[in-house]
Structures are given as structure tokens and as C-alpha cells.
């Protein structure tokens, strides 16, 4: 009889790290399909490239750090980091941007801190911020859904754009690209336009940005699946959405002519991706129940503050990293009451 352990418990549940990571990837599928639908198939190319680079970088670092390859290559964490970064990058991000981002995430943000479980900051978000600061032009060159409907991008031209920088044919990248709805809202409010007029432009849809709103809703549905399968708990996403809703409602009620509606903020940019897939990264988020509520609310508030008063169109990445820094403090002061304590 092969006995398991030296000491009790001798039983073990079915949960595995790899299983959690796989569920997370599965939950991304609906939204990724929507991204392909609205922005073309380039995200699939970016994601494949990111995953391959991530696994190679992971293997290299494990080798250098003299760690076993198999358990850590199969835990799925590198794939998740790569997938999340690929989704966060602009659709036509050049290949070198993807490679730099992934290498930075795996080598610097993850392994130099000790690898799986020891990184204080979300690797995908660190990489995103590094790229945003270093290559602002490439990082803000987005595809508006509208121009794409005029010039649909097929697989081979997407491939060409990513690896050569040109879509081929008579099109140029400048003809294709444009601002994101969040960006447009911000610059046009700066030009003294009124939000209720801005959202009537073709860039905007029913509640948020055209296309973006559906992608956000599908991220939300994927997130609900993760809660249902107990991969994540509801506390962080709910607290984050409440935080974002409260602060955006206050400013919207006080001055509707200078800010977008709460619904616009909930369904634009990376809100839902951030709420369900980024802020909930267990390694870098708060772990107590109360702590998760504080953490989520903090991400929501900071996201809004950076979107409105910061220098960048979306604030999810910065908000998550800033809150990551506070996690040890939050966890220490939100310990649950122990049985029998007064």
C-alpha cells in the first residue's frame, strides 16, 4: 500500500494549480472570440507568439535557477500571463513589442522575484506598464471597430502587419488605426465636447465603446463562470465594480458635461478583464475576505482616477500594481476573527 504522507491529513481534494489555470483560460474563450469578431484575428497570432515566448522564457529561467522544468512548465501560470498580456495589447502590436513584454513579465516580474507564488506584482500588468511607458505610440495604436468594418483584416494581412508593420496592398497602418473610445472620450472632453454628444459618434455603441461593450460583457460572463467553479471569489470583482460605480456616479451626477456615465466606464476599456481576470490573480491580490473587498474597491477607485485625471487613457494596470503594493498591509489589518477570540 503506497502511503502518501508522513502526517495527516492523508486525503486530498481534486483541486490543482494547473486545473485552476486551465479554467481561467477556458473562461477567456468567449471574450477572445468577440475580440476576433470585432478586431480581426490578430489577437490569435499575438497570443500564440506570447505563449511560445513565455514557455521558452520560463524554461530558460527554471534552468538558470536550477528548478525542475516539468512541474512549473505544466502549472499553466506562464501561459495565463502570456494570454492576459496578449489580450491587453493593441490588436496590431508588432511582434517585437509582444516579445519584449512577455520576456519582461516572465524574467523580471516573475522569476527575479522567486517564480510562481513569490511575485508581488501581477507580471502581465508590469509588462503592460513597461511597454506603455517605453513605446507609447505602438501601445496606443488601436483599431476602431468602424474602420475595420470597411477594411476587414484577414488572417494573412494581420500576420503581415504584426511581423512587417504593413498590412500590404494599398492600405497603410495609419489608415487603419485610431483612438479607443476611452481615449476619444478623454481628448474630446478636453476639447470641450459634451459626453452625451460624444457617445453619438460611430466609435461608441449602446453603453460603452462599440464592440468593447460586448467584449466586456463576455469577460464578465467568463468571470461568472470562474466564480461558479470557485477559481476566484466574488469579492474582488464586485468590490472593484462598486468602487468604480460609486466614484463615477458621483462625478457624473455632479458634472455630467465632463465625464462619461458609470455604465460607460464599467463597459469600456479593460474594466471587466481587470475585474475578473487581472485583479483576482491570487498571488498578487489580498487573500482575506475583508482584504479582498478593500483591494477590489481600491482598484476600482484608482482606475477611475487614472482614467479621468491621469496621463493614460486606461488605468487598470496602474491601479492593480498600486494596490499590489498595499497587499501585505491590507492582509495584516484584515485578519478574520479567530474562534473564541473576544
Amino acid at each position, binding site marked *: 500500500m503506497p502511503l502518501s504522507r508522513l502526517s495527516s491529513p492523508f486525503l486530498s481534494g481534486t483541486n490543482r494549480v494547473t486545473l485552476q489555470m486551465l479554467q481561467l483560460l477556458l473562461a477567456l474563450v468567449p471574450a477572445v472570440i468577440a475580440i476576433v469578431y470585432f478586431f480581426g484575428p490578430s489577437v490569435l497570432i499575438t497570443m500564440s507568439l506570447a505563449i511560445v515566448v513565455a514557455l521558452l522564457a520560463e524554461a530558460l529561467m527554471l534552468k538558470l535557477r536550477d528548478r525542475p522544468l516539468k512541474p512549473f512548465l505544466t502549472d499553466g501560470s506562464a501561459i495565463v500571463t502570456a494570454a492576459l498580456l496578449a489580450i491587453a495589447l493593441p490588436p496590431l502590436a508588432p511582434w517585437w513589442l509582444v516579445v519584449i513584454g512577455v520576456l519582461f513579465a516572465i524574467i523580471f516580474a516573475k522569476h527575479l522575484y522567486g517564480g510562481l507564488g513569490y511575485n508581488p506584482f501581477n507580471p502581465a500588468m508590469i509588462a503592460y506598464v513597461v511597454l506603455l511607458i517605453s513605446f507609447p505610440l505602438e501601445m496606443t495604436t488601436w483599431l476602431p471597430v468602424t474602420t475595420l468594418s470597411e477594411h476587414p483584416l484577414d488572417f494573412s494581412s494581420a500576420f503581415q502587419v504584426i511581423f512587417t508593420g504593413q498590412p500590404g496592398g494599398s492600405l497603410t497602418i495609419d489608415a487603419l488605426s485610431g483612438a479607443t473610445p476611452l481615449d476619444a472620450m478623454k481628448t474630446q472632453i478636453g476639447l470641450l465636447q459634451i459626453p452625451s454628444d460624444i457617445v453619438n459618434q460611430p466609435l461608441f455603441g449602446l453603453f460603452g465603446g462599440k464592440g468593447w461593450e460586448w467584449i466586456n460583457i463576455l469577460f464578465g460572463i467568463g468571470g461568472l463562470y470562474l466564480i461558479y467553479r470557485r477559481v476566484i471569489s466574488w469579492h474582488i470583482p464586485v468590490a472593484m465594480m462598486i468602487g468604480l460605480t460609486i466614484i463615477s456616479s458621483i462625478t457624473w451626477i455632479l458634472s455630467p458635461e465632463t465625464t462619461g456615465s458609470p455604465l460607460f466606464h464599467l463597459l469600456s476599456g479593460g474594466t471587466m478583464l481587470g475585474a475578473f481576470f487581472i485583479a483576482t490573480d491570487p498571488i498578487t491580490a489580498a*487573500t482575506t475576505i475583508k482584504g479582498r473587498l478593500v483591494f477590489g474597491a481600491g482598484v476600482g477607485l484608482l482606475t477611475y482616477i487614472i482614467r479621468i485625471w491621469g496621463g493614460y487613457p486606461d488605468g487598470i494596470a496602474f491601479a492593480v500594481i498600486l494596490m499590489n503594493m498595499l497587499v501585505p498591509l491590507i492582509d495584516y489589518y484584515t485578519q478574520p476573527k479567530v*474562534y*473564541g477570540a473576544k
Partner: protein
Amino acid sequence: MTDNLASFPGGLVLDGQKKRSTQTPIRQTPLAKKLILPLQQHIGEASEPIVKVGDKVLKGQKIARAEGHVSVYLHAPSSGTITAIDEQPIPHPSGLSALCITLETDGEDRWIERQQVDDFTRLSQHEIRQIIREAGIVGLGGAGFPSYIKLNPGVHHHVETLILNGVECEPYITCDDMLMRERSEGILDGIEIMIYALRTKNCIIAIEDNKPEAIAAIELELPKRPKLKNTKVVAIPTRYPAGSEKQLIEVLTGKQVPSGGLTVDLGIVCHNIGTSYAIGRAIKHGEPLISRIVTVTGTDVKHAGNFETLFGTPMDELLAFCETKRHPGEPFILGGPMMGYNLSGDHLPVTKTANCILVGVDNAAPITKPLPCIRCGDCASVCPVGLLPQQLYWHARAKDLEKTQQYNLFDCIECGCCSYVCPSKIPLVHYFRFAKTETMNQQQETLKADNARIRHENRLERQTLEKTEKEQRQRQRKAALAATKAAKEKEKMLEQQHTDNQEN
């Protein structure tokens, strides 16, 4: 019956695997040729042998007496000859040996004269506790604390409710379940006596709702007892670790035993179902505790079941009787799969606290190297005490013992829920046990160092005192010497004067 039940945080719904060992009635384990009886089968002081090698003893005869307050008597489980009083391997996770009395049985199984009490109300509460102590009865749920002490709340406490723990929440174990199904009368006999000894009225018999047969058996017997009109059976939801005393009290009353306090602070005393049966036998039939029901089960056991087994019976004989796939020397689990411990020796004796022998489990925890903690917090969400195992693990690994105390390490009941759910398969409880032992060792070291320091300081003080005293004495002597010298000189002078005068 499940009205107004509270619940405890966390916990797990586990695959009970109870049916494996409940298909046959309780059977008798064949009489072993040699019974090995450790002198310490309970919490407290080891008993003191009162027999010699070569003595002939009868079944139920006292062979060791209680030593000190927290101790009980030990009896010969069968008739025969004492062949040795020496160190023998005992069923303890350390694998160490301890002093045991070895009894070679004669096969006659002849009882000593038994004193039966038909009406226990003629005895005083004190007399009842004395009989229970002399019958060697300890908590049979697993802890082995002398029961007579828990039947004496003292003058400062009033016991409102007696809770009978028939929860048996660990998977695989069914000894209490079968005892309730088959011997409900004996259990209720014991409850009547305990209620009387505690001078209380109310009693709750708590049973997990996955044991409908046991609940039915007790409920069938209960109405026949006028003395037990304030006793009720409460079926509680099946959720591990509901059978842990503190969690059970929380489920039944919604209250928590204060940290560092006792259940009696809430006016509650808890006893195990098996203990109450033993008390009934001791008072009504004059039988001391010499046997218990042991569940033998597991995926590698062919004839799983429950066995009334004399203490001292070698476990390998019991295992052989049930036919297992285990080879001699291979490890098995004593207790349940969540809180039991590994034993590997053969010839280890069944003791008062041996409730289950488990050979092979489904969903065994893997031996592979665990992955790092990903801080998912699943462990915290199942902790019935409200601890943060992920933080405790972090600090225990870093050997930051002070931090582990700040995170309430010593409130951990080692139920194993955290290890069970961990997606990285980290043996968390193992780390916590280690940290507890280290902390206790350290405290002992500090105590030792403190004592040594105090001794040293005392010695220095003594030395200075001696020195000053010596100096004082020297001074005194010198002064005395000088004085005598002066006196002598004076005398001499006077003498001289005298002679001078005489001469003149």
C-alpha cells in the same frame, strides 16, 4: 429536529466512506495469546503497576493504579499470567517505546467478582466519579482524557447542558455509529449516570445526519427512559469537522468557547458516545474498561467492519483477522484519514484511544513535491477556526515563530481542511505541527535559560554575601584578637606594674 442550528465557518463535505464498515454487525476479535498494555493510554500521569512478573490475574483485575490526579487505573483485559513489565513499542507517531505490562492469556477469560449497582442514585456523585476512575474510563473519542474529571465541574461552575458527541465526522470511522445502532440501551444507561453526576437536567445527543440508523436506534430507546425526558437527539448537518468539540458547541448553541477557556465556562460538558457506554457498563455491571470497538477499514481491507477488541491485542492480529493487502512492516493509519497518524510497526497494541485502523484510502494525498503557495486563500475559506493558513505557512517556513503566534498558530486544531483543499498540495498541517513543537521547545529553552540565569545571579549574590560575611568575620576576629592582645598587654603592664610595685 434540526431547528435553530447554527454553523461554524469553513469546513468540508467529505466522501464519508462509512458503508465500507457498516455492512456487518460488531464482531468479537479473537482472544490474543499475548496482550501488551501500555501504562499510559490516557492524557496525564502514567499508571503505576501493582502486579509483579509471574502474578496470576483475573479478567477485570486492577494491574496498575492511578498516579496523581490526572490518571486512571488499568485492568487485565483477560485472565492469565503477567510475563513482563518492560519497554515495548507503543502506537505513537514517534515510534518510541514505553513501559508496558505484558499479559499471557490462559484462554479461560475468567472474570473477577463484579460489583453491580442497580440504583445508582443511592451512590453520591463523588462515589460515582470514584468508580469511573477506578474503572479506568477515559474519553474514547480520541483524546483519552480521564472522564471522572470531566464529570466534576467544581463548585464554581453550573452545568446547564451535557452534550453527547455521536457526530463521528471523520471519513471511514464507524465505531460510534455501530455502537449507537446496536447498543443504544447501554449508551442511555451511561447518560443517565452522567446527568446525575453532573447535577444537570438537559442533554443533547448530537449525531450527524448521515447516520439515520443510529438516530433511529437512539430515538426508539429514548422515550422508555423517564429520567431522560430532557434529553433530545439532534441531527446535525454532515460537515467535517463538526465532531470537534468546539465546532460542535458552535453548531448546537451558536456560542464559541472563549479562547484559552473551557467548555464548562459556557455551562457545557461534552462526552463521547463510547465513553457513556463504558460508564454504563462500569456502574450497572461493574465492568471496568477493558475493551473498545475498533473500526478496521480502508481500500485495502477485505473484511472491513467493527470489532470489540480487548486492549493490548496486537493490531497486526486484528488486521490479519480482517485480511488486508498490507505486508508486515508497511505503514497504516491509526485514527481517521484527516487527523490520524501513520504507524508502521507490527505487534503494536490496541489502546483505549484506538478508534480506527485504516489501511488504504481513496484520493490519497500525493507524495510529489508540492508547488509553491499561490495564495489562493482556499485554505482560509475552509478553516473552521478562522485562521489564515497561507500566512501561517509563510511564517512557519521562514521559522518566524513570533509571527506565527501573531497569526494565532496555537488556535489551530489540526483538522487538515487546509491541506485537503490546497491546489499546490502543500502539507500545511505538517508545517503547523512543526512550528508548534519548535515554539514549545523554544519556550522551554527560554525557561531553562531564565532558570540558569536566576541560579547564576543567586549564586553571585550568595558569593558576595559570603564574602562580606567572611570579611566581617575576619574584621571581628581581628578586632577581637586586637582586643585580647590589648587586654593581655594591659594585663602584662598591670602585672609589670604589680611586680614593679612588689619589687619596690
